[in-house]
């Protein structure tokens, strides 16, 4: 047992906490934070497990750097989509629209059907 391995186990815990949140929470921003928690957990596990001997390993560190950039790209895109979605529908969850924003079905069909 080395400190690195301790952090790998912390990564395991983070993954499952994040997974619980990701599945149970419906609010989209919170879901996004849960996704980032899982991501951090995976990164910790990756580096912690590879460095269990105590020596730094540059390869997983570089992979994690790549992973962090991919994660911020995904997060930023998701934030833009969520904000735009909220802007249009007033909703912060993925639940089907309630009756109050009911648009008549006929124009909906037309709109989806029209060439774009």
């Amino acid at each position, binding site marked *: 047992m080395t400190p690195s391995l301790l952090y*790998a186990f912390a990564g395991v815990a983070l*993954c499952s906490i994040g997974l619980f949140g*990701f599945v149970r929470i419906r609010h*989209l921003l919170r*879901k996004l934070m849960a*996704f980032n928690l*899982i*991501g951090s957990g*995976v990164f910790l*596990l*990756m580096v912690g*497990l*590879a460095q*269990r001997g105590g020596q730094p390993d540059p*390869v*997983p560190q570089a*992979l994690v750097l*790549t*992973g962090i950039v*991919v994660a911020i*790209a*995904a997060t930023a*895109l*998701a934030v833009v*989509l*969520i904000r*735009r*979605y909220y802007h*249009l*529908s007033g909703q912060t969850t*993925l639940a089907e*629209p309630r009756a109050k924003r009911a648009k008549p079905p006929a124009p909906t*069909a*037309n*709109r*989806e*059907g*029209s*060439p*774009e």
Partner: protein
Amino acid sequence: MTLGLMAGLLFTPLAWAVLTLLVDFRKGRVVTWLGMAVQMLVSLGLWAVVASDGGFLYLLGGWQAPLGIELRVDGLAVTFVLLTAVVAAACGWHASIYLDPDKAWHRYFWPLFWFLWAGLNAVWLGGDLFNLYVGLELISLAAVGLVALGGQADALRAAIRYLMAALLGSLAYLLGVALIYGQFGTLSLAGVTALLNSAEVPAGLSFALVLMLLGLALKTALFPMHGWLPPAHGIAKSPVSALLSALVVKASFYIAARLWLDLGGHLGSYALAQLIGALGGIAVIWGSWLAFRQVKLKQVVAYSSVAQIGYLFLLFPLTWGVSDAISLQAQQGITLQVISHALAKAAMFLSAGNLIMSVGSNRVDALAGVSRFLPFSLFSFGLAGVSLMGLPPTGGFAAKWLLLQASLASGQWWWLGVLLAGGLLSAAYVFRVYQASFIDDTDIDHFFHPSRSLEVIPMILALLSLGLGLMAEPVLSVMSLPFEAGRGQ
């Protein structure tokens, strides 16, 4: 020659993504036509080279595997590269006419389209576990961007749902990669396979394989994790739906299959294989049933994708613990299924787009009378449907025939029921669309007639899917070409 082709294959989609980012939709369309021609030639050239000389490893940056990233250019990979070139070019061509050039946001279609293509090629050729992760993310984000394009609330809901599922799937895959790197200290798939074959199999790694397969199955929309697929594929513009159903879901399946074939023998188990197969079987029946029940035309096609993807997962039970001959038969059947479904489903979505454009409604029952006005598109739809049902002489039939033989030869007769029921149910939902379109009691007479080339493209794809059954032999012979691992570049 080979080096030039490889550079062209990797460079073109990325370069065209940048080029089309800098111009507007109309110019981007012209630029894209050029790029599609280049990409098609390069893919054909590479396919021909591999067909005559066999596969090889391509060392990116000139670095050997554990340190650098190597691409695995074998028969299967180039077959899929060529398939991607055909389907993506068809969808791109269709999109260049179908999309309205006056909508400001459509200019962003082309860069996303090219990035998607680049990501697909990266996945087909990828031999490095982490590189495959990056390729998957490239595909997912480009696909989500394409679904969200235009930014309607419904499209955004579908896109966000899709993004969340894709991100969770990628993380599960990455977790498996972290465990495998921790165990072996290498990310090269070939290196991991060699280590597994040479030394005693370490305990506990099965969990890593299960995690990776789980994540990839989520991204492939295997039952019961298929909930995100129909909204996303149903609401996207038709060329985008075609790309997503035909190619994007296949990318994650392809990685799962490669992992299973390379690592599954050591890390998998009979129960796991049967479980995945059973989920695939349920997907076939449940997905077809839901397709039959849908009100909207594109939802029918989208649920049909859920069902057809189910067949692919029969690969897992049919290749585990069976003789090499049966395993090869199953692999060939699945590959044919991937190819024929890609062609047929792209044809189906594109012709569905034409039909919807023509009647101005997304509903199946709005199709009444369309047979008089758009027989050509309707015929493409039907031809593609025939391939999905698996009637001879289509590619779908050849695929299911091979799967049937593999099931019988391996003694797993229970998959026969899935193959049979799936075929009957898909016949049911295709005929339902046909029935609706032949009802002639409507007095609506203003059908919009889409341009001729919009109708030709799905027809070409449907005919290719039909013809695949007749030329299955040459395709299969290239696909299973022996892989010369030691050859290098």
